[in-house]
């Protein structure tokens, strides 16, 4: 878009949000040209920073009037390119919508604007309550982005995902209509449109207010880390804990040798050299945490743990978690570049798929570190490569794709929490048949028939929405009772 059309658009947007909240200079736009998946870049024509949901609505309505595509963006920490701009489109940055609107602990609810960070939600309901989904990026990532991606995190094993906590949203549709879906109460009559919105990756509209369920803080927490010779033994512990031993850990996280090395260099937690580590957290009534902890220690030792360290206090617990949550960023210490993959496998197939990843890495002559939510079977292989070496980025991409194929072959999924975005849309046909994609498209077209909200994401190929044929009407002869359909 150039010339008069662009000038008019910028004037209209500027009239809505003011000049200081409209970004159009190429230097300033560069900050928005990618999200956490930096391999993909695109230049939008403008970024708007609305202040409230009414401004979001006006912006979306203006864009609809000109049929300009747009992408909603929170912190830009997503890892699938979900917030990658559309070239010649507009980015609606929601970072100024960061107010906590209502805290209603008696009814276990908190209502926030989308730019509030994940960690701020828990802070708003502390110390009695907390918001369980906890992506590693929780200090920066926004709730709006969490809703778009159906974000997970380490504690999802026991507590569930974003979708299990969103009760209601205010949604601005691509035509600029604003509608309340769900609410404070659960099981409202009608379709579960909130269920369809969560995880829709910004393709069904933009969420401008979110009501979340929060839960009481557990009485006690115990955290331990166990070190093993290899991921196989650690995997056996996972299978035993998941298989119904009566103990449901709040989180079970695994790191392999390369990931441990990277973490050691980056945050220096003082871990021993090991082939794999399991971070297990237990929470619940105080009287139960101690026996459960003993049980987990016993299971780890039975499967050959070389060392088990139990966090003695909150500070030690924080250090263990910091090591785990720093793992992605720490990869920079052992590799010039890395690519985060996000596949899921049935938990009984973990060991087998980890072996397959090792084989694939060897075939491609690249290293892969594994840091993942073992309890959920959600793998995060980190494919290490050097972007400066010719051909290596391409090989890394190929290896990452083959890892996903291995996950699908094992009966899993191409993404557990990062989303399809731009990154995995080519793999969608490996998981879904044409008829399945066609069903997805029906939902997309119901919400955004013009395809303006985050186009080019999720679906493998661009599709247009046809007109809806008129609803079934009874024939006049039927109405007159002269004829009947059988």
């Amino acid at each position: 878009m150039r010339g008069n059309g662009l000038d008019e658009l910028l004037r209209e947007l500027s009239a809505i949000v003011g000049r200081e909240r409209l970004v159009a200079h190429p230097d300033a736009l560069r900050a928005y040209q990618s999200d956490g998946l930096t391999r993909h870049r695109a230049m939008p024509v403008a970024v708007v920073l609305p202040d409230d949901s009414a401004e979001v609505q006006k912006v979306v309505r203006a864009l609809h009037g000109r049929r300009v595509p747009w992408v909603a963006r929170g912190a830009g920490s997503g890892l699938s390119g979900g917030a990658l701009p559309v070239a010649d489109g507009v980015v609606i940055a929601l970072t100024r919508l960061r107010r906590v609107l209502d805290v209603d602990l008696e009814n276990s609810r908190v209502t926030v604007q989308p730019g509030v960070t994940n960690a701020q939600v828990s802070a708003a309901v502390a110390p009695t309550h907390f918001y369980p989904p906890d992506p590693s990026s929780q200090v920066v990532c926004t709730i709006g982005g969490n809703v778009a991606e159906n974000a997970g995190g380490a504690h999802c094993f026991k507590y569930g995902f974003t979708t299990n906590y969103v009760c209601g949203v205010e949604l601005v549709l691509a035509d600029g209509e604003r509608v309340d879906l769900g609410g404070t109460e659960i099981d409202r009559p009608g379709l579960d449109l909130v269920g369809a919105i969560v995880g829709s990756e910004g393709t069904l509209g933009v969420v401008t207010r979110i009501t979340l369920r929060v839960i009481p803080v557990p009485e006690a927490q115990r955290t331990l880390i166990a070190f093993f010779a290899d991921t196989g033994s650690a995997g056996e512990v996972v299978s035993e804990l998941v298989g119904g031993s009566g103990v449901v850990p709040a989180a079970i996280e695994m790191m392999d040798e390369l990931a441990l090395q990277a973490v050691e260099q980056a945050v220096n937690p003082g871990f021993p050299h090991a082939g794999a580590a399991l971070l297990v957290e237990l929470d619940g009534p105080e009287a139960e945490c101690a026996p459960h902890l003993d049980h987990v220690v016993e299971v780890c030792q039975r499967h050959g743990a070389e060392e088990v360290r139990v966090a003695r206090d909150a500070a030690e617990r924080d250090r263990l978690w910091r090591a785990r949550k720093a793992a992605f960023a720490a990869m920079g210490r052992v590799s010039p570049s890395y690519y985060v993959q996000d596949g899921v496998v049935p938990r009984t197939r973990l060991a087998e798929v980890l072996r397959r990843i090792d084989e694939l890495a060897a075939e491609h002559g690249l290293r892969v570190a594994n840091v993942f939510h073992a309890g959920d079977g959600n793998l995060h292989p980190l494919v290490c490569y050097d972007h400066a070496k010719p051909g290596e980025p391409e090989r890394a991409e190929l290896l990452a794709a083959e890892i996903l194929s291995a996950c699908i072959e094992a009966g899993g999924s191409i993404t557990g929490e990062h989303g399809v975005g731009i990154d995995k849309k080519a793999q969608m046909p490996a998981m879904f048949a044409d008829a399945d994609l066609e069903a997805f498209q029906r939902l997309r077209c119901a919400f955004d028939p013009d395809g303006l909200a985050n186009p080019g994401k999720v679906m493998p190929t661009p599709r247009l929405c046809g007109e809806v044929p008129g609803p079934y009407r009874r024939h006049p002869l039927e109405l007159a009772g002269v004829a009947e359909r059988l």
Partner: protein
Amino acid sequence: MSLPSKLGVDASPAPATSGWPPVADVSQLLAERAAAGIPTRPRGGATKLGWGSCGAPPNGCQDLDTRSLTGVLEHNAGDLTAVVGAGTPLVELADRLALSGQRLALDPPLGFERAATVGGVCAAGDSGPLRHRYGAPRDLVLGMRVVLSDGAVAQAGSKVIKNVAGYDLPKLFCGSLGTLGVIAELCLRLHPLPAQTATTMIDCDDPATLARVCTALSSAPLEAESLDLAWRRGRGGVLARFAGERASARAASALELLAGAGVDGDTRDGDDEPLWDSQRELQRAPQGGISIRVSGRPTRLAETARLTDDIGAALVGRAALGLWWVTLGPDSDHAAALSLLRERLAPLPCAVLDAPEQLREQIDAWGPRTAGLVALERRVRERFDPAGLLNPSVPVGR
């Protein structure tokens, strides 16, 4: 662990697009009816047939009995997942899973002859006391294969417990009352069957005490399986169920907590199932009566209990979730009671579930909803069922 199913399909994962013959039959039937313009009402055990509808189905509407879609297609015990035909009765599934010490943690009332099917319960979005800890059908369904109104067969979701690939159509279909398509197969998340259970019970005759006990128990980190209340004619009680090896100890700490708050209770250690059967039963209307599901808030419990006394109704529900059912016998003025409930509890949604058919024609089954919401629902329904042939008497989008 692999168990033979009655269909002779083993527990090895089936290819994603495998055609199970009964699904192909449903697809063909719907395609034929679509070509002829014949409306269809999907049904399983027919225990919740009228839910949501505003009167009898239109002339010429034919039922589609999903009970041809019966059987456990896969049971991946180590992964705690199963793929089942939608027409599988919940009781049959429970028996089958119990052999492996597992269960589907979904315990709605099973209806006449305990005929409720997995697909029917999910399509109706029904749930029971286990909702407190394990959620609704939407939270337990991992994937689905559905047949759309034109006969197209589509699947969404996956067979693993964590997946965000593609739109979450399984959530959209849960509670859609057969208006978007026919649920044919479901992939479900399972849980271990607890070794022991124990229930703490408190009786009271004052709505304020009822609400106070509910608040005390739901804000304490007790990790109950279920936390329920019941209230009728000025008397009621609260039930908290604990499960697992330490069930009795947990129940005892609940009692202690209540004693601290000046409330006396009692504990039943094991053999507590009848208490919970009765809770489930109270969600359904007595013969000729009505049941109304109130999407409530815990802070409005006391006034709701008083209001049910005023209209001669019974109240049952999930204490921490604020989800209640109000039931009335055959001899009340149902329409008047419903209006009073809606007026006094506004803006809490009050949805009519069980009701005599002639009453359905006089009342608005779902109560007020915003025009924007209804318009969006209509757009969704029209995309999935452009000809409006599926369960036409249910007011989704109207």
